[in-house]
C-alpha cells in the first residue's frame, strides 16, 4: 500500500475541514483574516465625521441656528403634533443623549442640558443592515444616505437605529414646510427621513448647513482620515465621548463635554 497511517490521517483531516467549512475554513485558520481585523482604520481617502463642542454650544443655550439652517436647507416640516415630528438635528437632555453617563450625582453643568444630536453616520450602521430595499446605504465617504425613491416606509430602520435619528412621515410634509427650498426635494407621506450630512453641499465643497450656521464654532466637520484636518486636530487635543458606543455601531459624531 502507498498510503501509510500518518498520510491517511492527514488526508482525512484536511478533507473533513474542507467538507465542513469549504475554502473559507482554510483561510480563517491561516490567520490572515484575523490579522486584518486587528488592523487600524484604513488610511487615506475620505471619511466624514463631526465633533460637537458642547462647552461652546452651551454658552448660548437657546440658540437654534444649526437646526433652523438644516431645516430650511432640507425642507424639514414643522409638525404640530410631537408624535409626527421630523428630526434631522435636534436636542436631547444630556442624560437621554448619553444614557450610560448620567448618575444621581451628575454635575449641574450637564444635567438636563440640551445636547445637539443628529444621525451619527455610524461605521457599522444597524439601519443599513435592516433595510429590506437597500434604500439606506453607506457612501464611500461613510455617509449613511437615504434613497427616498426606494424607501417603502417599513420603518425597520427606525427600529434598528439606537439613536432615534430617523423619522417617519405620517402626514404629507409639504403642508408643514414654512418656506420651501426649491433646490432640495421634499418628502412624501410614508417615507422615512434623516440627516444626510449635507451630501448635496459637500459635493459643492461647502460644509454642512449646521456647521456653516453655527456662530460659536461648536460644530467641527471634516475628514477623519486626514491627520491634518480640523476634526482630527480637535479629536487629538480633547477628550471626546460618543453616544452609546457599547452598541458597537461605531458612531462618527463625537462630543466634547
Amino acid at each position: 500500500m502507498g498510503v501509510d497511517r500518518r498520510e491517511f490521517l492527514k488526508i482525512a483531516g484536511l478533507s473533513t475541514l474542507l467538507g465542513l467549512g469549504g475554502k473559507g475554513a482554510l483561510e480563517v485558520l491561516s490567520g490572515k483574516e484575523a490579522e486584518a481585523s486587528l488592523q487600524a482604520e484604513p488610511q487615506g481617502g475620505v471619511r466624514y465625521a463631526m465633533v460637537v463642542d458642547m462647552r461652546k454650544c452651551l454658552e448660548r443655550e437657546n440658540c437654534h441656528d444649526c437646526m433652523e439652517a438644516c431645516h430650511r436647507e432640507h425642507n424639514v416640516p414643522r409638525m404640530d403634533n410631537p408624535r409626527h415630528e421630523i428630526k434631522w438635528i435636534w436636542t436631547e437632555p444630556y442624560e437621554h443623549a448619553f444614557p450610560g453617563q448620567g448618575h444621581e450625582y451628575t454635575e449641574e453643568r450637564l444635567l438636563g442640558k440640551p445636547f445637539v444630536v443628529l444621525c451619527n453616520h455610524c461605521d457599522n450602521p444597524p439601519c443599513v443592515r435592516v433595510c429590506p430595499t437597500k434604500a439606506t446605504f453607506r457612501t464611500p465617504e461613510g455617509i449613511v444616505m437615504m434613497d427616498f425613491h426606494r424607501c417603502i416606509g417599513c420603518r425597520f430602520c427606525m427600529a434598528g437605529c439606537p439613536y432615534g435619528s430617523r423619522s417617519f412621515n405620517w402626514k404629507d410634509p409639504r403642508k408643514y414646510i414654512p418656506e420651501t427650498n426649491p433646490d432640495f426635494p421634499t418628502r412624501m407621506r410614508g417615507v422615512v427621513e434623516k440627516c444626510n450630512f449635507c451630501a448635496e453641499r459637500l459635493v459643492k465643497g461647502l460644509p454642512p448647513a449646521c456647521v456653516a450656521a453655527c456662530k460659536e464654532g461648536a460644530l467641527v466637520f471634516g475628514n477623519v482620515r486626514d491627520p491634518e484636518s480640523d476634526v482630527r486636530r480637535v479629536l487629538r487635543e480633547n477628550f471626546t465621548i460618543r453616544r452609546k458606543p457599547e452598541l458597537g455601531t461605531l458612531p462618527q459624531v463625537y462630543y466634547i463635554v
Partner: protein
Amino acid sequence: MYDGGKIIPGLLVFLFLITSPAWYNVVTGRADYRPEPQLPSDQKECVKSTPYMKAFHMDLLNQWRDDVVRRGARVYGTVGGQTYDKSLSNTCLSCHANKAEFCDRCHNYLGVKPYCWDCHVERKEKS
C-alpha cells in the same frame, strides 16, 4: 338563430357605443390631435437629441436619479459649452420652466402620472 332580429341590431348598437369615443373624435376633428409641449424659446440644445428625449426621457431621469443618489455622480457633462448637473428641478426645469405647459401636456394626454412631483419641487418662477 332565435331572436336574431334583436341580437344583431343589439350587437350593432353595442359596437357603435364602444367605438363612440373614436367616432366622436372623427366628427369633432380631434382625431389627429397631438399634444404640443411648449419648448423653451431661449434655448436650442437639450442634453440629448429631441427624438431621444421624446422616447427615453424617463430612462434618462431614472439613470440620473441612480447616479446622483447612489453613485454620487452629480455632473452630467458639457453640452454646447455649458456644464449640466443631473438634476430634475435644477437642470431640466431651468429651461423647461413651466411644468404645466411642458411635462403635463403630454402626460395628461397619455394619462400617465409620474410621481416626480410628490417630492421634487416645481419651480414657480423662471431662474
